[in-house]
């Protein structure tokens, strides 16, 4: 459909399609950002999922006596399906709080709840309600946190963000398609005389459509490329900001890591091509429909 085509219709001079790249550009820009965001979000969720799957935390109220802590650890270690249980010592807990509260003696003296890290045997499903009952019996006020609720909420949030992004991209894409349709129709109207002459000389509809297609492809690609370059700059800039704000260390970033790997950049690079092809196909269908009305 691209191939060699004549240049009888002066489409490049009429100005009807001049605005096309300015709509396809932003469309590709938004699509690229949305996809980059989704890829980053997926990466982040996977990391958390991998890090948290198979781990649980038992929280004992502040001031729980040391022998009680030891007995709870023993209880946990003998529970089927639990691979290991390790009470965090006070120094480790204080270190966790250090970024927020600073490293003062006062922190050491705070009365903090005691935390016990659990690892589940891979694939095992410990009987959590039963375990909870036993825990409370051994240490009143003990809480078992399997992180699941937190992860579920995170997934719901991610899904909402993705759906919103997708909806925006779809709407802007639809607007772009309509612009191609109207641009093409304007071109058909402006060059009506030329088109009727070509038709009269025995030109097939495809011969005329190809000239519109080629123009839509060219402008779509130009706009798409511009949008992609801007999107790449934005992703790169956001990645920079994300790294700069990760003062809390690798584990606690305010922004998701927008660092994309090669295949992800490749996906984004396909966007201008997709946009150009979509513009081309839209132009073709529009012209073919209009020409079908000629005798």
């Amino acid at each position, binding site marked *: 459909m691209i191939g060699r085509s*004549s240049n*009888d219709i002066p489409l490049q001079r009429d100005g009807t399609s001049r605005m096309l790249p300015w709509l396809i550009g932003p469309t590709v820009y938004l699509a690229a950002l949305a996809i980059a965001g989704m890829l980053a979000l997926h990466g982040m969720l996977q990391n958390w999922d991998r890090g948290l799957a198979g781990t649980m935390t038992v929280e004992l109220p502040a001031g729980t006596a040391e022998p009680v802590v030891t007995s709870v650890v023993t209880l946990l270690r003998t529970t089927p399906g639990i691979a290991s249980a390790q009470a965090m010592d006070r120094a480790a807990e204080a270190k966790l709080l250090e970024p927020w509260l600073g490293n003062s003696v006062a922190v050491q003296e705070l009365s903090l709840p005691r935390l016990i890290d659990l690892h589940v045997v891979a694939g095992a499903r410990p009987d959590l309600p039963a375990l909870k009952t036993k825990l409370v019996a051994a240490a009143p006020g003990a809480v078992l946190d399997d992180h699941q609720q937190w992860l579920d909420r995170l997934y719901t949030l991610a899904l909402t963000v993705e759906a919103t992004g997708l909806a925006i991209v779809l709407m802007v894409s639809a607007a772009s398609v309509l612009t191609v349709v109207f641009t093409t129709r304007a071109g058909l109207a402006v060059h009506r005389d030329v088109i009727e002459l070509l038709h*009269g*000389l*025995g*030109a*097939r509809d495809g011969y005329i459509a190809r000239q519109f297609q080629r123009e839509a492809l060219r402008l779509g690609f130009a706009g798409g490329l511009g949008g992609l370059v801007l999107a790449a700059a934005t992703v790169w800039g956001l990645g920079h900001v994300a790294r700069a704000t990760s003062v809390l260390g690798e584990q606690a970033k305010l922004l998701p890591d927008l660092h994309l790997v090669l295949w992800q950049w490749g996906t984004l690079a396909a966007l201008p091509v997709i946009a150009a092809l979509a513009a081309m196909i839209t132009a073709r269908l529009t012209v073919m429909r209009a020409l079908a009305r000629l005798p």
Partner: protein
Amino acid sequence: MIRFENVGMRYGTGPEVLRDVNLNLEPGSFHFLTGPSGAGKSTLLRLIYLADRPTRGLITLFDQDISRLKRKALAPLRRKIGVVFQDFRLLDHLSAFDNVALPLRVAGMAEAKIRQNVTELLEWVGLADKLNARPPTLSGGQQQRIAIARAVITRPQLLLADEPTGNVDDEMALRLLRLFEELNKLGTTMVFATHNETMARQSGLGRLHLENGELSSL
């Protein structure tokens, strides 16, 4: 070659411009189509070169009933017909060369062959030095020769001319007529519409006359 049976034609809801037109043109014949202005000469030609469909009646072109043909099949038929318009209808943004090359490009001829054919024909009509000139920079006579070259570049079996002598002096009109007769001798069927009945009468060639939408053979 061309056969009309009880053909009627009206534009939209207007009056019938052509009424019960019957005609049968043999291959290789030469016909004038005369009649006063507004008689329907251009309309009759438009039906022949497939720019319009008749509102009633039967048209047979190159042995094919055109009402039975799919829209797609009309393009190859149009390529067998050359048309010279009174207003030339050249494309101002294309050079003389590209204007004449248009029917060949539309037909998908290779560019090298196009170059050769078009250059030869433009030499033949005396425009060898105007290959790259755009129509607006040329005289009316030169534009007309480009229009004729474009109409005959594909060696059409049927050549239609709609008032080609409308805007030229008597001597030029005569030379044009000689050119068309020459093409006719080479085998092209020719229909020459004009309101200049004197020229048609003096030529001694076949005459079709349109008056009040009715066609008669003189």
